[in-house]
């Protein structure tokens, strides 16, 4: 059913465009032009974050840090198998999906850690990526309490997710 939603919405939009005599072709020309401008302004942010993520993973730092964190995190109900995914979630969406795949392969898709990892990948966002990209068009650089609050709330959601996976 859900596969029909997007095409249907576009069809409705096109019909409304015809009724209101909007120049659809011109809209597409402008939209495409804007997209290149947008990419030009967000590319530096994506590139620097990706360099950082690659180094973080390749150096083994991510597994070292997740080793340190697994003990304290297990006290709040987060299984040690998924510490690394929690570390990667705020940084990289693709990295999270790759890691989720390896956790599913290692522990079985319906195992407790794999279900926790699946819920966490579905319920979280790439905090650092978003905060870099969203502010790419204006000069705001001091985000004050934004990132700590986002990380704290994500962690809270993660704890809830792991608890829910245990009972549901």
């Amino acid at each position: 059913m859900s596969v029909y939603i997007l095409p249907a919405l576009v069809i409705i939009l096109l019909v409304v465009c015809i009724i209101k005599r909007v120049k659809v072709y011109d809209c597409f020309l402008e939209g495409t032009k804007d997209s290149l401008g947008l990419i030009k302004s967000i590319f530096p942010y994506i590139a620097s974050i990706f360099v950082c993520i690659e180094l973080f993973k390749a150096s083994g730092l991510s597994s070292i840090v997740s080793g340190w964190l697994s003990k304290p995190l297990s006290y709040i109900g987060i299984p040690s198998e998924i510490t690394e995914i929690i570390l990667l979630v705020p940084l990289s969406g693709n990295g999270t999906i790759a890691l989720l795949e390896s956790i599913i392969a290692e522990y079985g898709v319906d195992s407790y850690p794999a279900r926790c990892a699946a819920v966490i990948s579905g319920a979280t966002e790439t905090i650092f990526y978003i905060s870099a990209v969203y502010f790419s068009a204006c000069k705001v650089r001091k985000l004050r309490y934004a990132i700590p609050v986002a990380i704290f709330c994500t962690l809270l959601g993660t704890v809830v997710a792991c608890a829910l996976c245990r009972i549901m």
Partner: protein
Amino acid sequence: MNIAFTALTLISIVLLTFTSPATAFPTMLQGVMNAITLAVKLAAIYAVWLSVLKMMQATELDKKLSKLLRPLIKRLFKKESDETYGWISINLAANMLGMGGVATPAGINAMRSMAAEGQTVASPNMILLLIINATSIQLIPATVIAMRATAGSADASSIFLPTLISTAVSTLSGIILCKAFALSDTKKDKDFYVNGGSCNKKRHINAISCKVKPSFMSRKRK
């Protein structure tokens, strides 16, 4: 951001120099390569979605959508321009439906329209929008369910409810914390005015940037 970036990069490179010095440079290049691949993909996604957004603006459907979400958004984001409300409502609606391709450009435009000229410190409303986005308000985790189904799960969509509750918890707590911080911000401003110059420099800058913004916005609205 600068501190976090420098620290992470430095520690990683130092570690790499000890473990496998030859891979340090290729790893960084790989990062940029990944960024280019993503940028090309995003350019395609944005080209289509921005065109759709242009059509929505031309037909004024975006205004109808923002009117629908207006009561909620006006309560969350106070004292912003109509343009900002429009972008925020597109951003939130797209997010809920899992259309990241529309959500990001709308979010970027919302941030730009909220920023006053020369503003370098984020206002409470900007932080709130960022946190709502960063705590994920997606309703259907389609990718993850598809992955579980491919891996042969007995009940692939069983994660739907836990995901929904978990996102709701993180987003709601984010909004509450944000509002609490914003409240203490206005108290800070009052303190600042009562105590005069006895505040430290950093708070001084914050207070000014927060105070300056609304007047800019109201001028823009006229």
